[in-house]
């Protein structure tokens, strides 16, 4: 047994850390939030140059064939600095669906994602179908007309291609849709963690037979795998948040003086921070378990991702709430980073099933 990261993995983490520290501080993030794109073109270019946009794709798709461990490293670091680039939408959700498929044009699309020149979003969620992703109401008729509404499409407004889940002839399908095609309309909304998601409506949109990415069991397996991987990634992001929450809180309480001493002298705060530390270590342990199970493609991989997601959903939010509380008024100030961890934790718990939902997958 060896639970250490490889040298390459450590180097990857250092690379990402360097980027986060030098090019993506909180002020930079604020600029990105206020920009029209809601992502940073230059950062995205840099991600492509560093190979971060292609690293998780298979070698035949032009990637490095990196797995869930490398993705978890990246997301953990993103969580620490609250990076809001549309990585999850492009690489993890849309990208892994394409990569796992036998779609004829997948290499071209994955190259587009990898080079940063193309944004692709996965439209898998619907309003009345909470967490039931394999039985969408969106329908593809025998004449290949697409009708329906998809919500919570991450980064949808920047997408030049969409992957849409739908039912045709009682069979689950994943089809490629051009958002500029006739009959497609959308609204974009802000997410609580300062990203964007869109709601798309399809009205008699013509789908070319060649734009079916996958169907039947193959399509449902691909989607479930992609969502499981995405759940792992946002959970890794939450682990990063939890680590930062406890570290920043410890640092703040050492600096903040009240009653003629640093407030870190007070035992009640010490114990609270110890709990935050323990919960973040346990989260890290569950992350190790989950990413290793996914990496080895074991039959327990879904269960262990659920265990992780449930833990970070509950304790991540608790840690962030404690961090806010211990920062006092500073914790609720928009211009301080600490309150944004809480928003991220709310977003993580909301996505792909919350803590209670994943608890049901255990046992």
């Amino acid at each position: 047994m060896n639970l250490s990261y490889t040298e390459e993995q450590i180097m990857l983490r250092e690379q990402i850390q360097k980027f986060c520290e030098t090019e993506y501080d909180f002020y930079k993030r604020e600029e990105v939030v206020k920009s029209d794109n809601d992502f940073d073109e230059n950062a995205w270019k840099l991600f492509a140059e560093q190979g971060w946009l292609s690293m998780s794709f298979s070698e035949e798709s032009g990637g490095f064939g990196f797995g869930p461990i490398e993705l978890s490293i990246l997301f953990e670091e993103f969580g620490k600095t609250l990076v809001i680039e549309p990585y999850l939408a492009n690489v993890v959700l849309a990208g892994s669906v394409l990569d796992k498929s036998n779609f004829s044009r997948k290499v071209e699309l994955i190259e587009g994602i990898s080079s940063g020149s193309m944004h692709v979003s996965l439209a898998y969620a619907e309003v009345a179908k909470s967490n039931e992703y394999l039985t969408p109401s969106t329908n593809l008729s025998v004449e290949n007309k697409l009708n329906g509404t998809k919500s919570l499409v991450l980064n949808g407004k920047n997408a030049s291609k969409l992957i849409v889940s739908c039912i045709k002839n009682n069979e689950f399908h994943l089809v490629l849709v051009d958002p500029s095609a006739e009959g497609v309309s959308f609204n974009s909304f802000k997410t609580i963690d300062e990203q964007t998601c869109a709601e798309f409506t399809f009205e008699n949109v013509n789908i070319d037979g060649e734009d079916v990415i996958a169907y039947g069991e193959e399509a449902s397996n691909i989607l479930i795998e992609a969502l499981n991987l995405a759940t792992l990634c946002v959970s890794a992001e939450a682990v990063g948040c939890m680590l930062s929450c406890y570290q920043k809180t410890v640092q703040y309480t050492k600096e903040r003086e009240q009653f003629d001493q640093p407030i870190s002298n007070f035992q009640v705060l010490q114990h609270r921070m110890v709990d935050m530390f323990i919960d973040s270590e346990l989260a890290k342990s569950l992350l190790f378990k989950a990413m290793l199970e996914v990496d080895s493609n074991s039959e327990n991989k879904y269960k262990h991702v659920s265990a992780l997601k449930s833990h970070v959903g509950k304790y991540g939010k608790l840690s962030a709430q404690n961090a806010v509380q211990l920062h006092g008024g500073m914790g609720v100030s928009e211009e301080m980073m600490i309150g944004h961890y809480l928003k991220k934790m709310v977003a993580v718990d909301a996505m792909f099933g919350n803590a209670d939902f994943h608890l049901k997958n255990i046992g």
Partner: protein
Amino acid sequence: MDINFSKEDLAFRDELRDWLANDYPKHVKDKMDKGEHLTRQDLVDYHKALSAKGWMGYNWPVEYGGTGWSATQLYLFNKEFGMAGCPPLLAFGVSMVAPVIWTFGNEEQKKRFLPDILDFNTWWCQGYSEPGSGSDLASLKTKAVREGDHYVVNGSKTWTTLAQNADWIFLLVRTDSSGKKQEGISFLLVDMKTPGIEVKPIITIDGDHEVNSVFFTDVKVPVENLVGEEGKGWTYAKFLLAHERFGIAAIGASMRALGQLKEIVSELDNPDLDKKVAEMEIAISALEMTELRLLSDLENGGHPGAESSILKIKGTEIQQGLTELFVEAAGEYALMYPGAGGYGSNDKPSGPEHAAVSLERFLNFRKTSIYGGSNEIQKNIISKFVLGV
């Protein structure tokens, strides 16, 4: 023992309900019911409507134009107004500075300030916390130096709620640094229009502008605006904070929220959430009964002291817990947040109607366990004065 209210109390409750049904300004009610933001004018209209009814001085003695209500009546007032979804009364004038003025101020100050508070002609804000002085309020540094017939004030205050709307601020200042930090603090009343005062917004994580920093540069305050004696401000400050406790349990508002939550949850078929809502209902019931027990004790001549900190701790835990359950009830749609004030007339996403308001409350209510003496400080108070350790 008798858990029922007296006939008189029930008649009083009916009078409250009658006002809420007929005289609660409609435009304010509409906005509150929809979770929309109130403007300054809305809040003025609401308070003036209460003044017109003679209820603005709800916790004042009759002598100064107040209602002279009993503790039970005060409780009913709070609960009925909370359950009706009314905005909480702005405490700064009517229940913070006013009791200080009538208890420690001179006749001239009583005449000058109290009637305008009662009629809501002046909007007050609270100049207590400073960047370096939160829980340890007595360490405050804003300085007032006596020069002839006025004080010159320099320094800054923070987390000043709705200072952007305020006409006056009551201020704790340091007039002497030579002794213990609790000594040498004085209590000043300052016109916000005085030259040298600058209000800067602080935006909170819900995206709203509710609190501010207030900066004082060579602000001249006439000596007649000093309340009581120079150097006795700490006594007055503590007296004021004791008054702030009243109604902090927010039972009525929490009961209303619980009712709304139950309606939402009843459509969800989510047993986990059902269980959490049931637990919340028990917590609210326990807290309400605790408040009633304290009240009964008070009316029977008792002096409940630090026990009232239970109301602050549990009251705010319940308020926050409720907002968390609303967010859970929004499910995946808790992901979308348009910022303070909701979507307005813009396109709204699908998903639960309540999601945006629920997220706003969730983020906004983080403050409740921090302000008014943080819950950690409240627990210190209980351990010192109740447990005696």
